[in-house]
């Protein structure tokens, strides 16, 4: 079930109406949990048991961590939770990758091995909900929060349907307190949530799904296209992935907000970042901050000698890349971002006392950042390395044997969307609708929704991040 489908509209209407008609907080949470599981089961009911198992285990680990003061035992319980969660991801997402990569490596060494890969369906959103789940046990272990005594709360936190399958990756300490007290409808910013949902819908259904066929066409056979088409294909993919993911996040935040819950922000105009470090403060913020808090800092973070910090950055970014899926393309994507972060850090250190160099880079910062981000997207999107390198050559060297053309005029579409996005970043479209009287706002919303429907493609494209 996708947020942009008709059936989701009916589903959410039922969730919303029943939720607010229930008086007791526990009844509301039970209702939310049932609906969340129905939402997940609509994709594949068998994997619901995995989600339930993950919730039950982490609730149990949380309780055991609360009971024992013995550091060794506490570490043992945490290890159990981490092994179970990471083991789940490893089995479903990385088993085939590691087995086939090892076989390829052995073959390269002249030791051909017979391998057995599994025909595994990856449970939708497994990387997201296991990260939700792990954040709970780690925070309890670290003493950042108390263990929750009600299993319903833990199950609701992990399974909460707006953020379950593609984030934002909500932290336990930010969400669980919201479940403790009943939400009040009078506190809900209905108007803000509705505008946010429509914005997300436009991003996903109108922009991302319209850009998708162009990007798909290009990345299916990059060698067949001209170098100019490489730019169209890559830029359209950059637009698609941003609008797809941030559109999903907007809709998720809006749905949660209509039920009285606040989710963390996930995007802050990432394509206007002035450096790669800035980019990671604006793109998929919930993942980058998760990796920072639970991986980068435990590795040593910014403490220690320079090479040690750079090692930490590279490990974090490589694992961040691998989090997206078991493929070398994701590893290279993570590595490219890691290298860029190291270079940026080194540049900042070298030019700390050189204002002229800083002045030069101020003008080049944005184009360099967006260019590098797009280069990395090539690996993120490409089916495999054989498809990635021709696209990279066309994009970087303007050389391609292909003759097919995607239409260079479409670069103007990119310019147009960039202008709208820039105006939005300046806050030109925000808040002006707040003072409008409610009936007028309702009428305008209905009209706007009718116009938006005109522009969506006839078929939905699944959310890109659902596969992660």
């Amino acid at each position, binding site marked *: 079930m996708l947020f942009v489908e*008709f*059936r989701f509209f009916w589903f959410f209407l039922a969730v919303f109406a029943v939720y607010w008609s229930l008086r007791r907080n526990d009844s509301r949470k039970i209702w939310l949990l049932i609906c969340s599981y129905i939402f997940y089961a609509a994709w594949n009911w068998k994997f619901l048991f995995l989600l339930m198992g993950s919730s039950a285990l982490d609730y149990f680990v949380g309780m055991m961590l609360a009971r024992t003061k013995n550091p060794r035992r506490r570490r043992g319980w945490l290890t159990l939770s981490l092994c179970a969660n990471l083991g789940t991801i490893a089995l479903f997402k990385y088993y085939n990758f590691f087995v086939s990569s090892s076989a390829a490596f052995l073959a390269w060494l002249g030791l051909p091995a017979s391998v057995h890969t599994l025909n595994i369906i990856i449970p939708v959103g497994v990387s997201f909900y296991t990260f939700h789940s792990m954040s709970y046990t780690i925070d309890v272990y670290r003493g950042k929060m108390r263990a929750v005594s009600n299993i319903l709360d833990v199950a609701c936190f992990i399974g909460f349907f707006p953020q379950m399958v593609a984030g934002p990756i909500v932290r336990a300490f930010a969400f669980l307190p919201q479940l403790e007290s009943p939400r009040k409808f*009078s506190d809900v910013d209905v108007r803000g949530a509705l505008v946010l949902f429509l914005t997300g819908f436009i991003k996903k259904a109108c922009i991302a799904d*319209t850009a998708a066929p162009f990007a798909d066409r290009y990345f299916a056979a990059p060698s067949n296209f001209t170098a100019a088409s490489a730019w169209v294909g890559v830029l359209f993919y950059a637009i698609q992935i941003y609008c797809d993911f941030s559109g999903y996040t907007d809709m998720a935040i809006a749905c949660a907000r209509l039920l009285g819950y606040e989710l963390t922000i996930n995007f802050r105009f990432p394509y206007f970042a002035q450096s790669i470090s800035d980019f990671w403060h604006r793109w998929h913020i919930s993942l980058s901050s998760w990796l920072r808090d639970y991986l980068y800092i435990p590795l040593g973070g910014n403490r220690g000698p320079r090479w040690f910090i750079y090692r930490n950055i590279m490990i974090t970014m490589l694992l961040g890349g691998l989090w997206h899926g078991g493929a070398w393309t994701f590893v290279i994507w993570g590595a490219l971002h890691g290298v860029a972060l190291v270079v940026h850090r080194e540049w900042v250190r070298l030019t700390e006392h050189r204002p002229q160099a800083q002045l030069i880079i101020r003008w080049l910062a944005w184009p360099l950042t967006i260019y590098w981000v797009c280069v990395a997207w090539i690996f993120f999107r490409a089916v495999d390395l054989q498809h990635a390198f021709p696209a990279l050559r066309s994009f970087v060297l303007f050389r391609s044997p292909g003759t097919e053309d995607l239409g260079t005029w479409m670069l103007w579409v990119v310019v147009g969307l960039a202008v709208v996005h820039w105006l939005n970043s300046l806050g030109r479209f925000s808040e002006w609708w707040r003072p409008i009287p*409610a*009936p007028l*706002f*309702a*009428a*305008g*919303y*209905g*009209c706007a*929704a*009718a*116009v938006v*429907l*005109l*522009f*969506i*493609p*006839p*078929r*939905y494209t699944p959310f890109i991040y659902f596969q992660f």
Partner: protein
Amino acid sequence: MTKQVSNNFLCVAIALVALVATSALLHALFPPAIPAGVVAKLNFFTEHKDEFDTLFLGTSRFNYAVSPEIFDRITRESGLPTRTFNFGVDGMHPPENFYVLEQILKAKPRKLKWVFIEVSDIQVKWTDNVLGTQRLVYWHDWSRTALTLKKALDPRGNAQWYIKLARFWLARRDFATNLALFAKQFSNVGRVADFFSAQNSKSASEVAVELGPKRDGYRLAGDAMSADRAAHFKERLAREVADARSKSIDPYADRAYREAAAQIRQVGASTIFVVTPVIWQSPIRFPRSPPPGPLLSFNDSKTYPQLYDTRVRIDDGHLTRQGSQAFTDILAHEFIRTVRPVVDKP
């Protein structure tokens, strides 16, 4: 609190009214684009509407099986000259064909005398690969959707209300699917994309393919079935012959065919219903009498063995070029035999 709740409901009602009103306005301004396969024939027929007096409307079974050239030659030789256009389109089953018929009649073809309509039941089930496509959405206006919903709820047309209620659960997927398709059609979902794809599909080569080499709508079919498939076909045909028993078309199709015949009469033409030589051997009839027009049935392998020879068949429903020549010949003679007494009446 009560006032707040009523205000909220009022706002929801206003938003819904605005949504419906704007959608209706946009629907009137930008009517659904007719997809490529259909629009090529529709445009050509509209441009040449006064050149044709006979029209074949149906699925690919008509499209590949009726050669206007042969049909017109036989009718001319029999003293009942016609000028025929084959409006068969792949997968154009009821109720899509009724929508297309309406569009054809809107063009007011002044010379139209005969409309042959392929008979089959109302379709309510759609496979996942066509769901949401422009081809399925464009004809889902309310009258056509209502037919599908009624059929889904009460296929025989005589169920009590409690049976309908039970059927509602059994047919929930068909019901929801057709309703969603109507919602898409009415709320103009994807209309801009449809407009661009309709513009793109107007290329001369695509239109030429749809219209066929003689520009009469007839497309040449493929080769005869393989030996394996032929053996399987013969087995199935034998089973169909053994199981054959008289079958009424569903009451909604019956009603829709009668309405179509009435619309055709209004432009001064007559309707002839045809059952093509398909593998299903049950004699088809209209549930109410008199039928809305003459019914010519060819799904009878005993009467028309030449149409069931595996060398002239592509599959269960389609004929090869040789088969289509034979079928057109038989159809034309049947037509003359059926309408001559009426035409010759003083």
